[in-house]
């Protein structure tokens, strides 16, 4: 196998063996601590533009199957593992990780001290890195990295271009796709929803024309401030349509309501993040993947209520609007990968719709009675 390397923006070099595609590519180097779920991680659009290091050393053990994708076209920039399995064993396995990455033109790097890399990221924060051939000098690699202009159109890259319908006989939901994981769609269809998936730039007016009973804001990659149109759209629909936001969707709701977001040093990526629900007092395990967070201090003066907190670093994990039927979480209740302890949030969203509609009806009735 071919010797390849990762060069970080601080000049650190990791020499390993290449697998998957052998193209040169740069990206933000992050790490994920999940011990299973590499297929879901690879195909999670939120990793667009990133090179993901798996901290668990053996990756590819159960191969790639036809079912566990979170999107059709992966947008991850690269994968770093300690050891890639070339003879996977699982009855669902269709092909090896290597073959899958080759087919999708994604480069991988194996055989490096991934723990060293992880500690480096933990101590210095996320860094840019370049996947290149072993003979490329560190100087040249760093030059390339510095020349690069960071991308800002992550969402545009991964969002659907055209709206489409996933029909059902239940609630009419508009799902705004900022880089949606299939898991969200799956949880909604499981609950018989009639879903219209719309592109990230869909306006509030266009959304209203679809007569949704609720709007779901998906996860997605990058800085929420790169998608100002969506913030405006949310501002318009939030007063009278029940909204549920996940991950990027959560950050966008915060921005729409006047709060602020910031970048975390190295983010939360893994399947073991404890989150405390402030209303019930209970802590649950969540699946997370985010580099940005809603600034806690910025909530003061907004109409947002802090509902959930990350147990370990106290960052914002859940919000609810004090007046409007909107709520959101920073983590991934659809799991895939990760614990399925928070599936019930989708039920809560549907319950919110019912409550909202009966309140509206009551208001209508009372309005009418005033008219009479």
């Amino acid at each position: 196998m071919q010797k390849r390397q990762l060069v970080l923006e601080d000049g650190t070099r990791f020499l390993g063996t290449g697998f998957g595609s052998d193209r040169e590519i740069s990206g933000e180097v992050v790490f994920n601590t999940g011990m299973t779920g590499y297929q879901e991680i690879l195909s999670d659009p939120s990793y667009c533009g990133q090179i993901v290091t798996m901290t668990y050393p053996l990756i590819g053990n159960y191969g790639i199957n036809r079912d566990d994708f979170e999107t059709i076209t992966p947008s991850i920039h690269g994968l770093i593992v300690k050891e890639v399995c070339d003879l996977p064993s699982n009855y669902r396995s269709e092909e090896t990780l290597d073959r899958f990455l080759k087919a999708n033109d994604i480069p991988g790097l194996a055989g490096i001290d991934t723990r060293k890399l992880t500690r480096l990221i933990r101590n210095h924060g996320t860094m840019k890195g370049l996947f290149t051939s072993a003979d490329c000098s560190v100087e040249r690699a760093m030059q390339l990295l510095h020349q690069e202009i960071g991308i800002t159109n992550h969402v545009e890259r991964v969002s659907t271009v055209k709206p489409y319908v996933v029909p059902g006989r239940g609630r009419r939901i508009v799902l705004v796709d900022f880089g949606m994981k299939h898991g969200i769609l799956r949880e909604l269809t499981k609950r018989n929803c009639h879903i219209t998936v719309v592109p990230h730039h869909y306006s509030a007016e266009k959304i209203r024309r679809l007569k949704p009973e609720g709007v779901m804001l998906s996860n997605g990659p990058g800085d929420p401030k790169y998608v100002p149109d969506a913030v405006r759209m949310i501002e318009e629909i939030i007063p009278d349509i029940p909204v549920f936001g996940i991950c990027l969707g959560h950050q966008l709701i915060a921005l729409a309501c006047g709060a602020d977001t910031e970048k975390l040093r190295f983010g939360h990526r893994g399947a073991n993040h404890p989150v405390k629900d402030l209303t019930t007092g209970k802590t649950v395990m969540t699946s997370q993947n985010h580099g940005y967070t809603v600034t806690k201090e910025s909530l003061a003066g907004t109409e947002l209520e802090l509902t959930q907190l990350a147990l370990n670093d106290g960052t914002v994990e859940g919000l609810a609007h004090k007046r409007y039927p909107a709520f959101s979480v920073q983590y991934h209740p659809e799991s895939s990968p990760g614990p399925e302890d928070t599936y019930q949030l989708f039920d809560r969203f549907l319950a919110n719709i019912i409550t909202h509609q009966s309140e509206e009806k009551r208001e209508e009735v009372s309005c009418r009675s005033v008219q009479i």
Partner: protein
Amino acid sequence: MPKRTDINKILVIGSGPIVIGQAAEFDYSGTQACQSLKEEGYQVILANSNPATIMTDDTVADTVYMEPLTTDFLIKIIRKEQPDAILPTLGGQTGLNMAMALEQTGILEEYDVELLGTSLSAIRKAEDREVFRSLMHELGEPVPESQIVHSVEEALEFAGEIGFPLIVRPAYTLGGTGGGMCYDKDELMDITRNGLALSPVTQCLVEKNISGFKEIEYEVMRDKQDQAIVVCNMENVDPVGVHTGDSIVTAPSQTLSDREYQMLRNASLKIIRALEIEGGCNVQLALDPSSFQYYIIEVNPRVSRSSALASKATGYPIAKLAAKIALGLTLDEIINPITGTTYACYEPALDYVVTKLPRFPFDKFVSGNRSLGTQMKATGEVMAVGRSFEESLLKGIRSLDIGTEELWMEKWTYKTMDELIECLKKPDDERIFVIAEAFRRGCTVTELFETTKIDPFFLTKIQRLIKLEKDVSAHKNDMERLMEAKKAGFSDTQVSRLWETDVDSIYEMRKQSGLLPVYKMVDTCAAEFESETPYFYSTFEEENESIVSERQKVLVIGSGPIRIGQGIEFDYATVHSVLALKQAGYEAIIMNSNPETVSTDFSVSDKLYFEPLTLEDVMHVIELEKPEGVIVQFGGQTAINLAEGLQRRGVAILGTNLEAIDTAEDRDKFEHLMNELDILQPQGKSVRQLDQAVAVAEQIGYPVLVRPSYVIGGSQMEIVYNNDELAAYLKKSNHIKHTHPILIDKYLTGIELEVDAVCDGENIVIPGMMEHIERAGVHSGDSIAVYPPQRISDSAKRECVEITMKIARRLSVKGLINIQFVIHEDKVYVLEVNPRASRTIPFLSKITGVPMAALATRCILGESLADAGFPNGLLPELPQVSVKVPVFSFAKLRSVDTMLGPEMKSTGEAIGRDKTLEKALYKGLIASGLSIPQEGAVLLTVADKDKQEMIEIARRFHMLGFRLYATEGTSEFTAEKGIPVQKVGKVGAAGETVLSIIEEGKVQVVINTLTSGKQPRSDGFRIRREAVEHGIACLTSLDTAMAILNVIDSTTFTASPVSEKRAVFTT
């Protein structure tokens, strides 16, 4: 939620003596839990009858009761102490069973004692097969088709419905005792009958066979807020069918996709929630390798062997947190002790692979049935951590200390391919080596998968290792190959075999090119958070995380896996040494490979290296840490064996030097020393030619003790009484290489005495002497030891003290020394000298109050005994009598002979203490699990040489009102002496036979001294096994029988007629 303030005094029930299925892991969890409770300010009362544990140290609990774990004694403790609550979930199955038994007596209600952690109803739901099954049905969790049976007939009926193969699991037994796989009607009848006899509720589960499924375990925790987490999941390399305690296990699971992982996680959490457990719980599941179909196999509503393993594998201290949860604290408010910054409500992320390998006792039990099934047979285990499966597996293999440091055993190279495949059809303890050998011969993964059902993932890894082995072998002295081999976990020993050179040159070669391992931290979080724990493992990578401090440091070598002859006692001594080093201001570094023990709790030492205990691995740590020296005398033979190599490589051995160790172990040097010091020892000789043996034995005079000088595969020591027996022995040991001589020693009958002393190089202190109940010839570890000696004259004691002083001084012992004496015809002979910690250290330390291992460590560091405040010589004897009673695991090891002899067979020990010997013995015997009958019948079958001696025993049993049964020879002999006895037929005879009366429960005690002689399946053997399988006390030494007789005598009243009228009245 804050901890509870309405309770103050808590009774913790320990797990008692160590048996297969319930071992050192409960010392680890129990100690952690007690400390955890004390930390929170509660008063801890501990009941445990195992003196060899750290848990029963007086610093661990506020009050320690080393009393038998029976309802009678626990009730006494409850009445006296009046605790507010009991914590029963930390003492294994024993703890749970005791809690249920106590509840039934009504004592808990009477004294308003609350059960913490897990409710009785939850225990019942998890433990009772029937209730468990209906709970699973309620939850919609699948369990294999099965039927609860109370009789053999019911089992057969069920078999008629669903067919074979089937698994039988008796209810409420440890480690699957009595269970097994049945392929036909006969096996089903046999195993069910046995299982019903062993189940305290006469209940067995007969279950559909799902062998071949993946066996997965989840360690889960829950608190009273209903917050529940998974600490760790594990995948067994051996699929369902082999008990998880006997399986090679990896953490985390390797072949599960996230969907499968989450599906099984959900099921496990659902179960712990349904059982409302407040603490830890273990869920075992079986997953079909070709669908999402899974079954719940078993749930343990308590900390277990698996939870100890999970704690060490992840760094997450389950028992400690389970105790806090039992007090009402919740996971989200307890700090994760590993990181020190995050919370316990968290699922550890691993960035390494952990492999656990079982350690089997078949090196001692050569005749034991080695096939593995649902009944656990391993006595201990090792854990190894690596950054790849291959690395962790190979590190594990060399941690086992079984004479190979690689996946290679010479004996398998002599087998044909067909023989190998045949051997693989039924799992046994050496399967992994056979698989490796089969790959060496070109077998494919598919072929071996067909035969073993081991997941191809693991087989492929082994195949890869063999490919690499061939590649390395073909490229001698190639550094690149060497690097690849080291990364895959190869030992220098393996490379030296492949390159036909010695280990030292490989080591030198690596050192020169800087091919050395680095150390990574076990931190529960895959480096996501900064951690405080000094818990490390080695791997061949770039970054080293083990920061070497400026402090003066000492490395203590642990004792590796628990095995027969090297038990938890050595871990006890190791821990005490570490604590003493810390107290003396040193940085105490420990190396060990055993996940079950206290010594590998990262909070015990300043630094823990979880590593194999081989020269290579120890040297790596020494190269990095550069300690002042290494202490090897507390880690049993494993550590002692390292001394020579360490010295060769220039490492300072602290304490008693290598020369002294060698003098004690080398037969010629030892003999020389004894002569020089004018000390008696049994006459003996070593012979190289087998035909010389008879001549030598005759010259020395029978009986003689014979053994190979170099023990291969545990071939035995035996006492032989004549030429025939010697010939039989020689024939049996034919396979032993002729290069090693056979040792023949005079066997001296007499009282055996044991001394443990601490020596500072000049002076010694002997805290106490122990006399053995059984005469010399029974291994000291299998004898009942009594403190203070009861039958030894003051002059003999004085002589023993003098001899001990002489030897200790002559060998310049610094630290511990153990000497075994036999008093033969009023003369004191030395049998054995061990200049290291012995297995009696914890027992003696506890009963005399002298912290021997700690004191020895201070001597090793240079302190004198006088400075430590101890006088020279034997300390005054204390009035209380203490006995150490061995505990065996014979019920778990079918086809192992229970006859006691020079080869050690016990797995654990219990203590009995009281005012008199009889009372102490009574407690000790009860604590060891023996029931002492007050009435009933005794079966006598003794060897001719014992008949005379047996008469006294027979007479006294008769006087106590026991009925006597005996086989022909014994019965005639007994009847001749005027003692009424009922004759029964021999094995296989018609009518009432020795076996049938045992089977029918007509006898309560069996006294059997028939040696196995020439046939391995002799009548004596069958009688002994029959007794074990029916839970009847079987005494193979007349001394033990006499001791029990004394106990019965002192606890019952006899009815005896007025004897001869005195002359004064008749005249």
